[in-house]
């Protein structure tokens, strides 16, 4: 049995996350994203690699699709996959993701079709139909997808409703993290997961080699930049996606506005984002504890200083802050406003931390102000405004990844969603520091690892009882340590140590056409009607001993043997010595049938018996005794 991972996207890159994992024959698709950097079919994962030869369609090839969060690089290809490719099986995502994903998809579709004039790969109806097939899940809920497959979502931070997914088939378990954040931010908590028995963890690695300090300093920096701009009468443009970052920044600003008693309007560019705020209000249980605790008195997403925007306000005088979609200034309304506001030195454009190559945002990141940006051959924009780049990201840093992997301690780790050279560094680190096998496959590559499988056996009550019985061992420490006045605070080793190492011992029986069964030794004999047959040895031989010695022979032998075999547990009884099954006593029977050697002078016969298990030991003991001179 094995786990097979086919990476359809986000292999050694960021974008179009999609991994198809086969656990003990069950195939699960984790995420179904699209790549923002392409506008041809390369934007989607290569779904044609999914069907196995024996079934041609996607529905029969996959047990289910699981989406971790609503970002387009994790869900963007889903309507295409269900409505155009025809996948009709179960789809799982968390409640917030199900509520917010259609907004993201529709927003993206509009930008593609209505504004860029590209041919659409799915329609609005496709989005609606696709979302109807989605089953929403709550965190920690154990969902039984089918007889063998169980899945469970854990809190991942990152964005509202982001989840890490645990999947279990039989005895094999794995976790797909999606994007996650190991430190809490303004509105979301940190990722949380149980300690699980895992064969594989597939983790994102956006910041595979970055270590970040506290977030608060960077938040202050952001607020200062905004405040400086509006104090100088400038306008602040914050191009963001409708969901997630917009709400987080808005919480920051709304809070700051209250504290500083600012009256400058904050605008949201479209009804869409205002509507999104309402989703956030209902889904407040998915935010951080702090936000949750205050919801009755004031819902933190009920922004006081936010007003809705009107197109005429673009050219209105006076300072303002505007959130406009899409992020990265890749087109649409944010580009329209950018064109108007960029030429003025007073204004500020707040860029997100990461911009895909090819977008205006990406060009601005590396530009020196003032500059000119070419939109197309005829249009160029004079950029004289200030550019500020947000430096906080909802992704975990390298320490967070290492912490999570260490916490989960899986047998294997696979890295996705990162940049190739950094991933290679992290992979090496996981291998060397944690001693866990690690992989970073490229797109369309397959990684195969073994999976855990237990052997199932029935067991008898007697076996269970016997293994729960205490199994005390008394260990004598070799010598009692003398009390040292200097070290008297140290705990002295006790003279006798009592251990209770319970060992389950029994018999595994295999009978034709029956499940294996674990029973006790006695049960085997009675059920099979077999009797125990002992194989024992006997040997009677002379030991040199001066009879008038004050100490008895057995006592002397005992001391000699203890000296020779200090590790063995020996017991001395008045009439005999016992070492495991080996028993020795002084033989007074002149006719003893086990005698084979002639008596020497000053010797006494010792009769020994032992069972097969202690055969080697017995002969060692005997040879010591034969050399003994009492």
């Amino acid at each position, binding site marked *: 049995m094995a786990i097979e991972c086919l990476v359809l996207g986000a292999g050694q890159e960021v974008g179009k996350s999609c991994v198809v994992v086969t656990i003990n024959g069950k195939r699960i698709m984790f995420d179904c994203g699209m790549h923002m950097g392409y506008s041809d079919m390369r934007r989607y994962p290569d779904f044609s690699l999914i069907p196995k030869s024996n079934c041609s369609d996607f529905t029969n090839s996959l047990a289910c699709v699981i989406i971790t969060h609503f970002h387009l690089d994790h869900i963007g290809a889903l309507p295409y996959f269900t409505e155009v490719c025809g996948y009709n099986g179960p789809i799982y995502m968390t409640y917030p993701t199900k509520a917010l994903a259609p907004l993201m998809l529709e927003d993206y579709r509009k930008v593609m079709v209505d504004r860029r004039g590209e041919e659409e790969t799915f329609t609005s109806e496709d989005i609606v139909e696709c979302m109807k097939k989605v089953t929403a899940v709550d965190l920690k809920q154990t969902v039984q997808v089918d007889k063998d497959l169980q899945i469970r979502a854990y809190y991942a931070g990152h964005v509202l409703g982001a989840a890490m997914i645990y999947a279990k088939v039989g005895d094999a378990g794995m976790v797909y993290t999606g994007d996650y954040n190991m430190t809490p931010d303004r509105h979301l908590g940190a990722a949380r997961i149980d300690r699980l028995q895992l064969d594989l963890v597939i983790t994102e690695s956006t910041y595979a080699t970055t270590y970040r300090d506290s977030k608060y300093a960077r938040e202050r920096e952001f607020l200062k930049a905004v405040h400086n701009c509006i104090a100088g009468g400038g306008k602040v443009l914050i191009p963001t996606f409708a969901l997630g970052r917009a709400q987080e920044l808005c919480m920051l600003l709304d809070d700051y506005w209250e504290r500083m008693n600012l009256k400058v309007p904050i605008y949201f560019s479209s009804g869409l984002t205002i509507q999104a705020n309402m989703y956030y209000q209902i889904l407040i249980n998915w935010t951080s504890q702090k936000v949750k605790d205050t919801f009755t008195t004031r819902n933190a997403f009920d922004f006081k200083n936010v007003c809705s925007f009107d197109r005429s306000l673009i050219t209105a005088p006076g300072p303002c802050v505007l959130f406009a979609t899409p992020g990265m200034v890749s087109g649409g309304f944010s580009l329209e406003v950018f064109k108007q506001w960029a030429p003025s030195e007073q204004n500020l454009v707040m860029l997100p931390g990461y911009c895909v190559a090819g977008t205006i945002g990406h060009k601005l990141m590396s530009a020196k102000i003032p500059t000119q940006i070419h939109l197309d051959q005829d249009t160029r924009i004079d950029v004289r405004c200030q550019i500020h780049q947000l430096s906080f990201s909802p992704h975990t840093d390298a320490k967070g990844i290492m912490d999570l992997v260490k916490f989960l301690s899986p047998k294997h780790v696979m890295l996705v969603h990162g940049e190739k050279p950094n991933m290679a560094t992290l992979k090496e680190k996981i291998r060397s520091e944690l001693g866990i096998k690690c992989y970073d496959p490229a797109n369309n590559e397959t990684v195969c690892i073994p999976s855990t499988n237990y052997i199932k056996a*029935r067991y008898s009550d007697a076996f269970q009882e016997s293994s729960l019985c205490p199994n005390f061992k008394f260990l004598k420490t070799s010598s009692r340590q003398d009390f040292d006045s200097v070290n008297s605070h140290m705990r002295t080793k006790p003279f006798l140590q009592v251990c209770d190492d319970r060992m389950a011992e029994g018999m595994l029986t295999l009978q034709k056409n029956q499940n294996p069964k674990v029973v006790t030794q006695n049960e085997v004999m009675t059920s099979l009607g077999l009797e125990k047959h002992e194989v024992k040895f006997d040997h009677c031989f002379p030991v040199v001993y001066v009879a008038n010695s004050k100490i008895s022979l057995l006592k002397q032998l005992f001391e000699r043997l203890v000296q020779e075999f200090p590790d063995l547990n020996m017991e001395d009884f008045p009439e005999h010595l016992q070492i495991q099954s080996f028993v020795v006593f002084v033989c007074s029977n002149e006719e003893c049938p086990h005698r084979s050697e002639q008596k020497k002078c000053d010797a006494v016969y010792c009769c020994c018996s032992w069972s097969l298990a202690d055969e080697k030991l017995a002969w060692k003991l005997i040879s010591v005794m034969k050399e003994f001179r009492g």
Partner: protein
Amino acid sequence: MEQSLVVGCPCIADVKDCLTKVESLKYAQEACYNGTLIVKASSSGLDIGSCNWSITGPNGTIIYVSSSLCMSSTATSFDYKALQRSDVVLYSDFSSCNTTDKFEDGNNSSGTAASNFSNISDDAVDLEASFTLLNNDEYMEEIEKLDFICSCSMDSVKSRGSVLIPIGRLGIILQLLERFALGLESENMKVPIFVVSSVAEELMAFTNIIPEWLCKQRQDRLYSGQPLFTHVEMLKDGRLHLFPAIHSLELLTIWQEPCIVFCPHWSLRLGPVVHLLQRWCKDQNSLLVMEEEVDANLALLPFKPMAMKVLQCSFLSGIQLQQSHLLLKMLQPRYVLFPEVLKRHVTPLDSFDYYSENEKLHIPMVKNSELDITVEVAVQLRYTTLKQQDTNISRLKGELLMEQGRYLLSVGDNQVCSETETKPVLHLGRIDLNVLLVALQKMGMNVTVEEARGDDGLLTASLVHVLEPNKALIKVTDVQTLISTADENLASLISQAVCTNLDCI
């Protein structure tokens, strides 16, 4: 009087302290107690957050079925699929104790056929279909009841009377609120609705942030971008007002009659309801809506003579007897425990019993317990095929762990040296003397045989004397073989020959 002197009335600090000890769970979340028991809740549909429980241990699964509602228009529906294939069902829905129906086969055509829910004679699909049908009827009835309350209330309000609703069930309150909003709107009336309770504000805010705990229709409102309940909008536009107490200053300033008031307590002895009843009990246009479970004669005694109209309504609060039979058929438990009080309603089933208070019951269980063996343990197994039977057998050793309610046999920490000591310790069977002699001779030994007889002349042992290569004596009985020799190598050879004659494990 000091509060702590009131028996059975814990102070708020006690309540809070108690709740800090409570671990909250989601539906279908597995909580593991002590590694042994997995406790899981599933929706019962009665009200928001109400649940049935399943407890799974190494010896089976027990289901606790509390009062359940198959269809709900606020809370998550009854999740009966989560209760399927258990070992024991503890049936604890007492809601039908007072009914006169008999608990019997819902399928009338099959008459008194002895029912055995552990074998699925009925088509599972049919069962589910008829179950859903029953639920649908029941659901429609509930809707009609609510509509009736609403229309009665509208009549009262139209005739300038007020409506007082001291009902405690949250689901009913939320549904009535929505119906009133619609009703008032269609009549084009502006009548304020008040909810007077110390927890009103928190409750209304809370109900709007728990989509995961609501029925499908409510969740669809989330997906279409609406608040989960209309009361959010009603609060915003001033149709609905929430007050912690009847003496709230703000309430007195905006109070107007007629109005509709939701407030505690259903007993009519505590809370704002007492004051409002006194105010309205002489008004023949006003309306009091109460649940049928309350003894109206007794409850209304202090307010008599009453001119106020009283509407008593019984809402579903559990599984109907007719449904419970279908339900048990679908759940297919091995054993069912019914409350003693339901005895006269229950037609005897195959594997069942009655329970009553403070009485211990023994449940006969035939359960094949299973454990998991890790591969690491399994590779250490050395199988022996027994001589007579068709059985392979191996000595098994490891550490028995309990994980998630299952036993796991894994390689223990101090079991490193086990690889070396694979020597058999158990020998089964009897020695066939002739076979032994042949084996010894094959090893090049020169042997003679002597029979040892007891006083009664019966054979007690066979004595095999080995003369070459060295001297040895082998005494063979039914249960023991005794080898005595001074030669270590010879002893070892003989024991090998003996072992080939036995089953060694």
